[in-house]
């Protein structure tokens, strides 16, 4: 049986207004891209980050994904933008899942968030 309400308020709001969906608007000293995907459901998430002085000046995402993953990507972007790239890895999929009431069946898909962030991080040269 379907859960009575599959999307919580926050997921709906984020999904309807994914301000960070799309391409980078500015031009930055450094631009990073993390493109990750998952074969089972064909989900794909791409993060684009404009980096200036170790900071994430602008971050955008594109997703071929369910509303939960879209919402999670938007959360990550909202929280990351303006912050330090080095602080990004603290974002954990399980925390996001709790906040967004994501069904456990989607755990595999939601790990794409961690993967993408890690990829950005690795590219920045500050990993480890």
């Amino acid at each position: 049986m379907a859960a009575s309400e599959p999307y919580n308020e926050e997921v709906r709001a984020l999904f309807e207004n994914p301000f960070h969906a799309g391409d980078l608007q500015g031009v930055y000293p450094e631009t990073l891209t993390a493109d990750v995907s998952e074969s089972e459901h064909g989900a794909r998430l791409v993060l684009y980050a404009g980096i200036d002085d170790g900071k994430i000046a602008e971050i955008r995402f594109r997703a071929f994904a369910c509303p939960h993953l879209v919402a999670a990507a938007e959360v990550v972007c909202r929280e990351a933008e303006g912050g330090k790239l080095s602080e990004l890895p603290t974002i954990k999929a399980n925390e996001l899942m709790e906040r967004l009431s994501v069904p456990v069946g989607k755990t595999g898909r939601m790990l794409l968030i961690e993967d993408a962030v890690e990829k950005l991080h690795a590219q920045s040269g500050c990993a480890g």
Partner: protein
Amino acid sequence: MSQDLVYLDYAATTPIDLRVVEAMQECLTGDGAFANPASIHIAGRRAAAIVDSAREQLAELLDARPERLIWTSGATESDNLAIRGAATARAHRGKHLITMPTEHKAVADTFRALAREGFEVTWLSPDDNGLLSTELLADAIRDETQLVSVMHVNNETGVIQDICAIGELCRSRGVLFHTDAAQSVGKLEVDLRNLPVDLLSLTAHKFYGPQGIGALYIADRPQCSVLPIMFGGAQEKRLRPGTLPVHLIVGAGVAASLAGDEREVDLAHVAALRDRLWAGIAAIPGLTRNGREADCYPGILNVSVAGVEGESLLLGMEPVCVASGSACNSTSGEPSYVLRSLGRSDADAQSAVRFSFGKLTTEDDIDTAIERYRRSVEHCRSMSPVT
């Protein structure tokens, strides 16, 4: 309820409570409430929420957790699913099963079918009062025994089995215990937090809910594995496929909730009616009561009368509607096994009349029934060669 009929066959099916009808009506015509609860769109989710809350209402009546209840089409299906499902799930451990010949056909015939398929079934006869002796049961349980099925309230006589003692015995011996509670749920207290029952069948139309909807309770114990008997979808924990009938489930939920609120009052009401009825007919010569008062659910009074033919007796009672033995046997004409096991002769068993009544029954109904019964017995006796 009726102008021309006196309906005293509540054990076959009760009239539906008008508050239940109203809730079903709302669901049928409500906005999206009719949708398939398995659909993920808004309408489907509304329907699913309605189904969930009805499940909670039923769970509350039984003091069970909602997720332990599986909706079915009625007690017949619940019985089939419980017995065949548990027997086949545990067949690798052993193929011995125990039940009683006084069970409802939905139970007895399922065991007969399993017996044809290679299971061994022990049929334990009740004592002279219709009760199962736990000593007899203890002796019958063997290492290979996997399932015991004993009904809560008998549909013909109202005899109440001590399912608590039976369940405890089964649990102590590692055997699953199923009870057909079609005649007790909503009428007597059935508290699954305290009762050692593994599987319990019920049907809404026996407690003022709609026909066509029932449930199977499956205890949350690792032993309680059940295999499906029908296939085709993920509904009801993959145990029972098919689109959930939302309005029926709503009806069952409301009926359960009303039963919880009104059970005590109803019970006192039927007990008073039963006493009135008995007082009105007890003096008829040759009358026997089938089932001791102390052992019986008071909404059923079953009596036999010597020297009177059952079918003629019933016709003479019209427009009072009563059953001769189980409604399910009514068209077969066979004398009731349940009554014979109480020690009645075939002749007495075939003259048995089951009066069963409930919350809509009035004292006037009972008085009409008394008058008609007396008159019909007299009419039949006036023709009878057996004097």
